[in-house]
């Protein structure tokens, strides 16, 4: 197949995957609300998986279709790009991205811990079922911590409103005590979203592998760079636009939350289905770089609880150096 057709498929499939993920999450949240699940749980989960479904879908589909390297590459590559590339670009454009101690301690610590967990299991050999169970369990614990923190915040907001206005307002904890019947529209939406994700990810992996074969590029490189950057478009638009609007928590939170999800679920779930082999260069170079950029961004933020334009340049330069070494030196 011609390279132009493959590039066309890659672009179209990326748009399908991102839009399908959006439709899927939207309808899933609506069904959840109709079933009486708390808005807090739905909100936290939707935000966490909303931007990461494309990476997750690509990793699962790639693994199931025999291109495991492309799956692992997409996850690790996305995590390096999210921090060094996306946060770097956002800090350069916005000038500054602020952070708060509580958020950075919780989300930063789990992001770093997640990267260490991955490298630990990589050292032990192929990532198998035990590693998968541990990763998924850690994610469930993290999600519970997030929900608990959100509930406490909603409670203090509610108290503030009651004290100020004497109103009894039900903020955030609307649990939909009145169960409504699920609308067919939502079920169709979930099915369309899911089908779009499966078809889109399959096409994405197919075009990625195809382009790689034409130019003799290893699958892991296609995953680390092409698919990783492509599937991270939602993170890029969310992080950049929230940084420009001064929504700093959302900006840094999106990247850290996405990185945690990418590893624990993006590698955890495929590893539950089949053994995920470990590429030696990934173990000794890509994964350590992922830990390095995570530590780097946390150190840069911790200094003044913000990322400056200079910090953004440092992060982006780190990404360019990583890409140059990985592509031209290690191959």
């Amino acid at each position, binding site marked *: 197949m011609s390279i132009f057709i493959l590039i066309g498929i890659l672009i179209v499939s990326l748009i399908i995957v991102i839009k399908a993920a959006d439709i899927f999450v939207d309808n899933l949240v609506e069904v959840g609300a109709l079933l009486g699940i708390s808005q807090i749980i739905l909100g936290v989960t*939707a935000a966490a998986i909303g931007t990461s479904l494309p990476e997750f879908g690509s990793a699962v589909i790639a693994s199931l279709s025999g291109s495991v390297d492309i799956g692992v590459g997409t996850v690790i590559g996305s995590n390096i790009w999210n921090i060094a590339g996306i946060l770097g670009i956002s800090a350069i454009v916005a000038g500054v991205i602020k952070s708060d101690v509580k958020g950075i301690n919780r989300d930063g610590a789990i992001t770093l811990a997640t990267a260490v967990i991955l490298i630990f299991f990589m050292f032990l050999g192929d990532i198998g079922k035990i590693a998968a169970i541990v990763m998924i369990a850690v994610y469930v614990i993290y999600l519970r911590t997030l929900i608990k923190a959100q509930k406490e915040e909603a409670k203090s907001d509610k108290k503030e409103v009651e004290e100020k206005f004497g109103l009894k307002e039900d903020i955030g904890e609307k649990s939909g005590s009145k169960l409504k019947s699920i609308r067919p529209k939502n079920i169709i939406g979930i099915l369309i979203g899911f089908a779009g994700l499966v078809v889109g990810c399959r096409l994405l992996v197919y075009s990625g592998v195809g382009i790689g074969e034409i130019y003799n590029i290893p699958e892991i490189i296609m995953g680390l760079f092409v698919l990783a950057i492509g599937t991270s478009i939602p993170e890029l638009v969310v992080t950049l636009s929230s940084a420009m609007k*001064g929504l700093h928590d959302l900006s840094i939170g999106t990247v850290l939350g996405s990185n945690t999800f990418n590893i624990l679920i993006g590698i955890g779930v495929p590893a539950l289905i089949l053994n995920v082999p470990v590429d030696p260069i990934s173990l000794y170079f890509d994964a350590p770089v992922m830990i390095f950029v995570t530590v780097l961004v946390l150190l840069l933020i911790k200094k003044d609880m913000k990322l400056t334009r200079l910090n953004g340049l440092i992060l982006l330069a780190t990404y360019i150096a990583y890409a140059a070494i990985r592509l031209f030196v290690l191959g």
Partner: protein
Amino acid sequence: MYEKILVTSTGEYLNEVIEHTLDLIHGRPMEVIGLYVADTSAPFLTPSKVKQMMVKELDEKGREVLKNMEQKFQKSNANVKFMPMLVEGDPAEKIVKIAEKENTDVIIMGTGKSKIDKHLLGSVSEKVVHSAPCTILLIRSKHKPLEQIE
């Protein structure tokens, strides 16, 4: 000369904007419209649930800024009749439209972005200057835009 003032801020330069507005009012009775425009536009491919979160966050931030504005005006000048206004849309466009609709005598807002910031982020004040229906008082801030967000 001035009876109705439109003061607008997204939290940037807020202290200086209020300081200058109070100086302009000089203790006289004055109607002050405090305007916060939440720029809720989001790029293509932004997940809709995340967009909803952005709108909610901007809305909360806007309420905080307006509450802060109201407290500062009422504390410093009892003659100020303050009217908070929170709207969604393109900031420059909304500021001009509301100034027209409310027939304000002067728009007061901050300015002070560096050349790099102006290129990368754009400048609301520059856009307002070109199409404002009334006098504009631009407060030149010595602080960086994001330093003053409270």
